[in-house]
């Protein structure tokens, strides 16, 4: 009986952590979905996240207001996106390479700023966990078993999930979404109808990057409430992989993010419970899964046809 209770507690714990840990993946990968749907592969998500994490943290640290931190992170992300857009759209640089450059830039600058402006690891009061208290004595979080799993996250986590239907709607049901899909699939056709391919791609990359900035902030002012050098630890790269995994749809991205974060939570529990599995193997598990998922060939046919291809008018 007590074994069953422990097992239930573990499963609930994994669910709770899974939902929570998916937050940065969701923001970053949905943002990247917009960029890739428009035909731009932004590999610099990790660097943008680090910058967003730093400025989100720093603004919160200085003002005590996480909302100001959130705006700072989004703005920082937009500027990084603008840089990526200038290099890869206007100057038509090889997108894989410019993205790696952007990552190195974000990693270096955020570490430098951390050392000069903060010096040590500090904590802040970021976005608090909500408990949805309907009365002073009853909160939704107190509902037995599932209350804690669903109703004890921060606003940024709920925002990440709200982004899934919003992004789906924007991509599929708005005129701008149609433009994004079209310039990523056949930019010549869009251009011939007077759609500004450059304009749509700039907007998509900058929007995606501002979401990447928020993804970084979701770590530094919501999940962890600290800033450390290289604190994103590969999340930005996984987010790029999740876009492929999710076949360029927000819903697919969400399923991928949940799967990934749940397995991540699982491996944390494996370590905590001291199960007879080497912890290195457990840590490896989510990444191994990513590689396997990406190797499935049929997904490639769903890829935007003009992904990574710069557009210039008049060339065949």
């Amino acid at each position, binding site marked *: 009986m007590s074994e069953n209770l422990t097992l239930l507690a573990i499963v609930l714990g994994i669910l709770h952590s899974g939902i929570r840990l998916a937050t940065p993946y969701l923001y970053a990968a949905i943002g990247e979905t917009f960029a890739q749907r428009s035909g731009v592969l932004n590999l610099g998500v990790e660097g943008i996240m680090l910058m967003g994490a730093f400025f989100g943290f720093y603004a919160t640290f200085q003002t005590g207001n996480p909302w100001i931190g959130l705006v700072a992170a989004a703005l920082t992300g937009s500027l990084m996106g603008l840089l990526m857009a200038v290099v890869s759209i206007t100057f038509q640089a090889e997108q894989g390479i410019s993205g790696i450059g952007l990552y190195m830039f974000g990693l270096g600058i955020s570490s430098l700023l951390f050392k000069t402006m903060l010096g040590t690891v500090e904590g802040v009061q970021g976005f608090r966990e909500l408990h949805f208290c309907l009365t002073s004595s009853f909160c939704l979080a107190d509902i037995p078993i599932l209350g804690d799993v669903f109703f004890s996250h921060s606003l940024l986590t709920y925002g990440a999930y709200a982004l899934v239907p919003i992004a789906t709607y924007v991509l599929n*049901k*708005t*005129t*701008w*979404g*149609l*433009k994004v*899909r*079209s310039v990523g*699939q*056949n930019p*010549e*056709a*869009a*251009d*011939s*109808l*007077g*759609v500004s391919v450059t304009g749509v791609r700039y907007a998509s990359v900058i929007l995606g990057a501002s979401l990447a900035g928020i993804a970084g902030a979701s770590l530094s002012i919501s999940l962890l409430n600290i800033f450390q050098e290289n604190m994103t630890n590969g999340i930005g790269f996984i987010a790029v992989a999740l876009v492929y995994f999710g076949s360029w749809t927000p819903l697919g991205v969400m399923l991928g993010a949940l799967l990934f974060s749940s397995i991540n939570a699982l491996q944390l529990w494996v370590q905590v419970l001291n199960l007879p599995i080497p912890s290195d193997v457990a840590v490896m598990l989510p990444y191994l899964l990513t590689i396997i998922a990406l190797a499935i060939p049929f997904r490639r*046919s769903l890829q935007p*046809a003009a992904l990574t291809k710069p557009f210039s*008018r*008049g060339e065949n």
Partner: protein
Amino acid sequence: MDNNSNLLPSGLPRIESLEMRGIVKKFPGVLANDHVDFDVKAGEIHALLGENGAGKSTLMKILYGMYQPEEGEILLNGRPITIHSPTDSINHGIGMIHQHFMLVDNVTVAENVALGLKSTRGLRLDLDVVSARIRELAEKYGLQVDPQAVISKLAVGERQRVEIVKALYRGAALLVLDEPTAVLTPQEVDDLFVIFRQMAADGHGLIFISHKLNEIFALTDRVSVLRDGKMIGTVNTADVTKADLANMMVGREVLLTRHRPPVTVGDARLMVTNVNAFNDDGKPVLKNVSFEVKSGEILGVAGVSGNGQRPLAEAIAGLQAVADGQILLEGQDVTNFTPAQMFTVGLSYIPEERMHDGCIKDFSVEENAILQDYVKRPYSNWIFLAFKQIADHAQHLIKSFNVKTPSRDTLIKNLSGGNIQKLILARELAREPRVLIAAQPTRGVDIGATEYIHNQLLRQRAEGLATLLISEDLDEVKALSDRIMVLFGGEVMGIVKSEDVTVAQLGLMMAGERAEQVFA
């Protein structure tokens, strides 16, 4: 043609006249348009004829706002207008059907039409409104299109109609048609021409870009001919002959007919038996294909693009795996040989993608002349290239095949399409093949070079070469082939004698009817 109403069926005013005057457009090293005058009137189909690189597309891209001219003006109903972008052009009532379909494949017809337009619901798409208007236009113009259909599921003829609807939806009174028949079967071309004639009768102006003389005579009222960026002249189609137009295009006398003398046919050189093949997605691309080509024979392969022609050529050349069946070259089993092995047993291959598979565009003419044989004597000696022999060989090919190039060191990408093709042909024939596969040997090649290449193929035929000629140009297939094989969906619809079949009958077979049904 003369109706009193000034309105088109779409409800918009006609463009009574459009004039381009003194248009000059320069590209680095080329004068693409040299003081070109051109005009089109309401109710008229006006052909713009010229070889590749004569400046037709440049002129039309200026009209559509994709290029800006250095000099010249455009007048609409007598008043000067400025066109800086496709949007300006669309707003003036000019529509363009591009040579390559400008459609987004993975979305619906309605979404393709709605792309770039203002929605009646602000930011939200109004696809139901768009669909209703598409149906209305489709009915008025007799164009069958389903607004909900996804483009990738449509046949090419249907995609062409979507392009027309897209232009009409945007209020096109004047339509530029850039080689609209390139990928259609003869029947689809006929259907399309009915639509074009009706549009002209309703008061639309149509500019028809083509280099197919038959189509120009079948459809147009006037013809303007461009050569080397200059307007050679504008004539009434009824007043000239094909030979006149060909002379205007090329600037000299050209023979449009080919003389194919009878030759003694020898043994089967290439035998293909029940060959099956699959593409990378596992879909069948060749189904039980069987045929033979004899010495002294040209076997033409006709079919709409993408019906197995390319896999067939590549299966024989060793570039496409054969899943089942057998290929014999002079009795030797060569099934699934590598390309290098195929070259050594006597196959020469002129691939359809000239710049992609036929040559290395950043290599010189000389280097391209020895692409297969660079490892062999006399072109190499142990590990060293024998430059003297290579140069002599290249010089010989240039001279004997009349390749126009500044020198043998010129990068091949700087030659015209016709001259590149002549060099590839020269290289392949110089290897003294037993079997030749010529895939689209004259696609995008000017009339003069086409004439030369055709005569070379016929000369080799007389000397006993077995040739498999794959072409989407039915006139070419009819003129050169002894027998014609039609492919549809990777299957052989029939093999018929060239003399016994009409273009219309070939068209039916290209659309999927078997020879037995067609000749029943």
